[in-house]
């Protein structure tokens, strides 16, 4: 098991563009993300390998974001895991919407050869599903759970506000509370 210090070290290397650090992210998180994606896909949208496609896309998006300096605050494992969870669940939500429009899923071409040489396991998938439910249970109130689910499905602040019939600032406030609650509890 990594110590917090070594994790911090490879997070810094990741932000410096070190591909070996991306391998570490892969090793630690891919299986969990695939399991999470499987849990987030409604049964009608599940097909062989789709959750892995979503996890791959999430990893690719994450790497592109790193390269473009979009994630300056990866100061710890909690933030990294949260970010990956958000990216993955959003992609699952988009895939479902694409299905509804007939567009189908598109896998990113980024480094597939490097990423495809690992197999997800049912144990990790179950663990990720439990982790997702645990995250929701931590929130307690219905309003926070509703905001978290909509956000994870890829909806923006104003869209969530419209759906919940509240102000955009209220949504932002709930998101800050969710972030604070999860930050105290989530560990990869």
């Amino acid at each position, binding site marked *: 098991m990594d110590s917090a210090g070594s994790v911090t070290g490879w997070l810094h290397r990741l932000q410096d563009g070190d591909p070996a650090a991306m391998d570490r992210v892969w090793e630690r998180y891919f299986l969990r993300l695939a399991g999470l994606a499987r849990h987030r896909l409604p049964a009608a949208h599940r097909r062989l390998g789709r959750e892995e496609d979503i996890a791959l896309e999430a990893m690719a998006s994450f790497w592109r974001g790193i390269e473009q300096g979009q994630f300056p605050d990866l100061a710890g494992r909690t933030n990294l895991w949260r970010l990956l969870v958000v990216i993955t669940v959003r992609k699952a939500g988009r895939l479902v919407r694409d299905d509804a429009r007939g567009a189908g899923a598109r896998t990113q071409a980024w480094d597939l050869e490097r990423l495809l040489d690992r197999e997800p396991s049912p144990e990790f998938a179950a663990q990720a599903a439990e982790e997702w439910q645990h995250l929701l249970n931590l929130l307690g109130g219905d309003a926070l759970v509703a905001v978290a689910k909509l956000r994870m499905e890829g909806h923006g602040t104003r869209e969530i506000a419209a759906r919940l019939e*509240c*102000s955009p*600032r209220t949504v932002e406030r709930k998101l800050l509370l969710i972030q604070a*609650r999860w930050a105290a509890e989530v560990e990869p």
Partner: protein
Amino acid sequence: MSQKAAANFETLGFSRAVEVDRACDAFELAWKAGMDPRIEDFLTGIDAMASEAALRELIALDVYYRRLDYGRRFPEFTGDGLTDDGAAPRHPVATATR
């Protein structure tokens, strides 16, 4: 060592943030019920360390719902010359160059 009051919701500790969030929810509910609530009434009982952050949030909500109310009462008014948060009027030239 004395603690410094948080000026923003983002810098509140979790328990105080929950407290402020509840006050804001109650305030918003009152607006949605058409009650034209007073901010002062919703600051009562808020921890002194969180009162500035609470006031900031309540004013933001108040501005938001007042703008909605103005939109309903004066549908012909476009809001040109007001900032996004409606807090202060701006000269149209300054607004156009933002």
